[in-house]
């Protein structure tokens, strides 16, 4: 079954069409990668999918219901979490607190309940802390529990942002270049973590530049170029697609 349906999504900025009539499906339990050269419209598409931006045309539906036009926090409540290309951590808060903020969507204590410590708030807080600690362990971050996010090394910060996104209890998670700036060992850890997350029942959409990682983990790949979808399919086929080679992989080969 199709978890996420993207239909003819178009987004323009002034005269520039950043995303141009893109359609694809994401199936439950899979890992889908979105690749393309810089400026292909990947991040814009991500923003549209997560409510941070609105499409000029087209629609996005999630679990059979319209998602287009929902505000970001509503999208999170529907079960779609995201990370950012430039990590958006809460720098002065500890790793545990960062993940606890991720629990915001799944907890209820408001100002009055918190101020008066109404019955239930203590239990909720305790459960949230346990869940946050569990997620830190899942991503191997438990030794950083009480360190401010600002003090953590770059690679672990990306993992922390993933842990925070997981804390929102997503069905679908969108990761914007999770391997950017990671070394080989860190990338391997990341791949490991992504499998574990997928196995825990979370569907993944990953925008990524690291071709090795993309070919290894993804079940299906969507290739964007100048806002258009130029190919879609399993990694083996994408690697051989002439249009993709021309638009993208050719460049990548030059880099290496």
């Amino acid at each position, binding site marked *: 079954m199709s978890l996420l349906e993207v239909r003819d999504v178009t987004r323009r*900025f002034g005269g520039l069409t950043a995303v141009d009539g893109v359609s694809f499906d994401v199936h439950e339990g899979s890992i889908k990668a979105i690749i393309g050269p810089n400026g292909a419209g990947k*991040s814009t598409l991500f*923003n549209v999918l997560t409510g*941070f*931006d609105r499409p000029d045309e087209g629609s996005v539906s999630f679990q059979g219901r319209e998602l287009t036009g929902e505000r970001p926090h509503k999208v999170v409540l529907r079960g779609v979490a995201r990370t950012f290309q430039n990590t958006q951590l809460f720098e002065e808060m500890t790793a545990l607190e960062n993940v606890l903020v991720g629990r915001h969507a799944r907890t209820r204590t408001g100002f009055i309940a918190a101020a008066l410590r109404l019955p239930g708030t203590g239990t909720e807080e305790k459960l949230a802390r346990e869940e946050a600690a569990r997620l830190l362990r899942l991503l191997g971050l438990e030794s950083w529990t009480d360190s401010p996010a600002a003090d953590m090394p770059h690679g672990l910060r990306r993992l922390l942002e993933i842990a925070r996104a997981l804390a929102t209890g997503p069905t679908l998670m969108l990761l914007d270049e999770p391997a950017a700036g990671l070394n080989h060992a860190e990338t391997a850890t990341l791949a490991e973590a992504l499998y574990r997350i997928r196995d825990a029942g979370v569907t993944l959409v990953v925008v990524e530049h690291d071709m090795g990682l993309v070919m290894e983990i993804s079940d299906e790949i969507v290739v964007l170029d100048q806002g258009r979808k130029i190919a879609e399919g399993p990694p083996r086929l994408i690697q051989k697609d002439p249009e993709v080679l021309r638009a993208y992989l050719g460049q990548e080969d030059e880099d290496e």
Partner: protein
Amino acid sequence: MGGSELLQFVISGLKNGSIYALVSLGFTIVYASTGVINFAQGEFYMLGGMFSVWAFATFGLPLWLAAIVGILLTAATGILFELLAIRPRKDGDQLSLIIITIGGSLLLSSLARHLFGPDELAIPAFTSGPSVRVFGAAIERQTLWIWGLTITAVVILNWVYNKTKLGRALRACAINRDAARLVGVDTRLIVTVSFALAAALGGLAGLSVAPLTQTAFDAGARVGVKGFAAAILGGLGNPIAAVAGGLMLGLIESMSIAYLSSTYKDAISLLVLLLVLFVRPQGLFSRSRREKV
């Protein structure tokens, strides 16, 4: 209301509007170079008047020289304020800079009270003589001075912006500070220069209106808010729009006195400020921009 009465209100509106336009230009210039609203802008207006009174009354300088001294000392204060309070905050964090200018506003006005005393002060009109009569309305000679000086300031500023190297650097900073730095513009110097210009314009406004309305150490905040309202009305960052916003606010105020009551003059401009902020924060003359994530 008769035609000549209405004209009288228009004249008065354009007089106050010119003052707001000068203060509003100060906001715009500093905003363009720093991305921050300078809450101390109104204090430059106050200082312009105070320094001129001081130079005129205490040192007995001729009025024209006292006015020049007033502008120069105010500009110097602006430079000093930037060097001592803005520049040391190297990260340029906006909330912090805003708070610094709020503190600066309080500090400048209370220092002025120590320097010049708590009383209201005034200087004589630049040229004495009866009002000029036009179609049954009277224009005070000082009003003509205000218009003349405002137009001169705008023309000079326009020339600086469009014809000089400094102006190009100022415009480059306004568009993109990082890019400007990359192509070799000394952005720190530009920030200092913009504070000097903003202070000079505020000072000019303060001293040219000082003969009509007395000035005191606490006169800055009120005019500062109006100058900001004018800048917002026009749309922050555009000098022409800032002037237009100033004149418009002056006219709106004047008309509210004509048709409502002078009691609500200040409230009206504040309401205009809130209304524009809530409904059209990008101003009347700019197109809306959507922020990109």
